[in-house]
């Protein structure tokens, strides 16, 4: 019987609940932890936000579900509060990125700053050397026998590619990976639900969460309004011109945070052919629009790079690059062009490369690394 202690990050959903039940059944000492990251009632009713929110992450309902699972499988369970840190490292940057004309990914920031940082610290403090989560991904140690890698922890895509969450995990360091386990990496979602049923978990049929946990209903514009109002800050005036790719002004817009690259609806201008947002310029508050053909780019630059499978990128490397969560990795070359910058050159131009999103590099199922698109 194993005697190690594993902390399971429990969200109250099927995946992490099943992880806790699995590890418990294997005989590990399991401690359930839920991170209280955001008070869902905080924005309720403000600036048109919904009065009540149902079943969102960090809601009382989810904490209740996680606690019931912990009681059922017989493990100690605790809620740890990281609301301040979440607001500082995830919510604020989320708002600021939109106001700067970028399209952020709060889930990656949360993984980097909360789940695999603060939670690992708490876990270690309470005597758990490793943390398990319900992410669909795999971790493996390369013992230097592979041709590419030498004694490094690897992040790999999961068996169920339709649930692949490696895109959100590209920021994990070697130290973080060495202390992380993803028990669902070899399973498909239906298998996980079946296992949850076999463990008698009442939430086996609970629907998956899809949206950003602190933006109920997915209306991020309303959220930004509500958040700034709550903070007593005025919404910065980011209104400006709507221009074509050739620089012709064809209208005005109410604020750059209302747009995302590739967006077609809600541009407020009528033309013969469909128009798309091609580029958002935070500096001069311009939104550049054009035809679909203008949406394609052959290259992008990524900064704040984290490399996982290799220690450094000394020479150009052939990889496949994913530029948003729902994107099939596209063949490309990556090369270092600065101390903290990587140039990605695609074999085929890619649609809607969006600043603020991540570019994650894959060598088959292995995550080589990634960075933030600028």
């Amino acid at each position, binding site marked *: 019987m194993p005697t190690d202690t594993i902390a399971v990050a429990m969200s109250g959903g099927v995946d992490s609940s099943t992880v806790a039940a699995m590890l418990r059944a294997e005989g590990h000492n399991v*401690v359930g932890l839920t991170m*209280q990251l955001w008070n869902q009632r905080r924005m309720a009713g403000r600036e048109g936000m919904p009065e009540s929110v149902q079943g969102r992450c960090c809601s*009382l309902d989810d*904490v209740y579900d996680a*606690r019931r699972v912990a009681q059922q499988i017989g493990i*100690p369970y*605790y*809620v*740890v*509060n990281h*609301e301040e840190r979440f607001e500082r490292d995830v919510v604020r940057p989320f708002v600021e990125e939109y106001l700067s004309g970028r399209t952020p990914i709060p889930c990656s920031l949360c993984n980097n700053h909360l789940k695999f940082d603060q939670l690992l*610290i*708490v876990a*270690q*403090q*309470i*005597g758990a050397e490793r943390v398990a989560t319900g992410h669909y991904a795999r971790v493996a140690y390369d013992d230097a026998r592979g041709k590419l890698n030498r004694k490094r922890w690897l992040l790999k895509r999961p068996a169920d590619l339709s649930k692949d969450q490696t895109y959100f995990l590209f920021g994990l360091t070697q130290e973080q990976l060495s202390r992380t386990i993803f028990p669902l990496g070899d399973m498909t979602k239906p298998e996980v639900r079946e296992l949850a049923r076999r463990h008698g978990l009442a939430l086996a049929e609970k629907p998956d969460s899809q949206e950003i946990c602190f933006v109920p209903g997915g209306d991020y514009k309303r959220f930004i309004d509500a958040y700034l109002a709550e903070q007593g800050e005025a919404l910065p005036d980011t209104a400006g011109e709507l221009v074509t790719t050739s620089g012709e002004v064809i209208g005005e817009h109410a604020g750059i945070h209302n747009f995302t690259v590739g967006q077609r609806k809600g541009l407020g201008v009528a033309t013969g052919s469909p128009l798309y947002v091609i580029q958002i310029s935070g500096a001069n508050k311009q939104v550049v629009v054009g035809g679909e053909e203008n949406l394609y780019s052959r290259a992008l630059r990524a900064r704040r790079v984290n490399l996982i499978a290799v220690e450094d990128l000394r020479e150009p490397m052939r990889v496949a690059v994913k530029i948003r969560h729902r994107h099939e990795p596209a063949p490309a070359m990556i090369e270092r062009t600065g101390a903290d910058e990587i140039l990605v050159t695609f074999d085929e131009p890619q649609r809607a490369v969006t600043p603020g999103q991540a570019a994650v590099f894959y060598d088959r199922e292995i995550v080589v690394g990634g960075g933030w698109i600028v």
Partner: protein
Amino acid sequence: MQRIYLDNNATTPVLPEVFEAMRPYFGEQFGNASSIHHHGQQTRAAVEDARESVAALLGCHASEIIFTSGGTEADNLAVAGLVETGDHVITSSIEHHAVLHAVLHAVLHACKHLEEIGGEVTVLPVDGRGLVDPDDVRRALRPNTKLISVMMANNETGVLQPLEEIGRIADEAGVCFHTDAVQAAAKIPIDVTRIGCHALSISGHKIHAPQGVGALYVGKGTQIQPLFYGGRHERSRRAGTENVPGIVGLGKAAQLAKEGLDRGDDKMMAAMRDRLQQGILAQVEEAGVNGAGAERVPNTTNIHFDHIDGEALVIALDLKGLAVSTGAACSSGAIEPSHVLVAMGLRADQARASIRFSLGKQTTAEDIDLALALVPDTVARLRELSPMYKRTALSS
């Protein structure tokens, strides 16, 4: 794993004698205390015996005791029963939420943040020791002041407030004076006439009676509006069939508490608490007692362990078998920095690094030994892994 329970300010175990006293009232003694017949007479007698015991603990007459569902109801009954819209209320920043929110609701019909409160409520500050200044009470008085509500002992620090002085001020001004004595009852001798209060709340489960029963003392001559309407129970001040087993338990616990205080058990409790406190401080650097300069109830010590996260310490200790707590927990079980410690002037990080140890009648010297064996090591481990501590260590 041996489990040690040092969270008696959260709740206490029901003492075996209390449980035995209650047992018949779940079974053969089932009558409704309002019934005319034999069964009713039996339970009526039990309820009135319990009332005598509670009155004896508080130094009042039995007719001045109203049984409630607990401390929160007692606080709400006192506040809502004495205050009307338009009245001015004086309270303190370290009250339990049962009082603070009851006051806000009674006066403003809304639970607002403290800083948003308008003129009808004065929330008095406390000093670094956690004490209300009676002169502040005097200065806060207005022509329409109806109620002063200041707690006897704080639930987090155990600090005892200068109630007799506040009572004199209330008396001179002709203002009602309520005190939440939930954390003081059974721990120190209480005499309502010496305090000069018009109303005083206690809770059963803080004094080794079960959860779900409490009492409010309301002095003769003080008119109080009920919260519940219905039958003429509790002299029409609290409608609803009596919780007889709970009331019997509260009566027994009050009787045992009175006997204990007469024997001087509180001195032994204080000695045990002091040994725990001094033992910890002797082994842990950069730690200190919150409310050290003030008089405290004998069972409580609240210690800040700088550079760590109190939440993690509570979890780590629980996994080793020691139950203690941080500040007040919210409904999801997560922690906001304690409003009491913040009001005393602690930095938010110090408030978050604070742990409350609270002893009960069942606590043994061996429990203290085991706690002393666990706490310093656990704090050391947390500090070793704490980014806050490393930063401080590097910069010093």
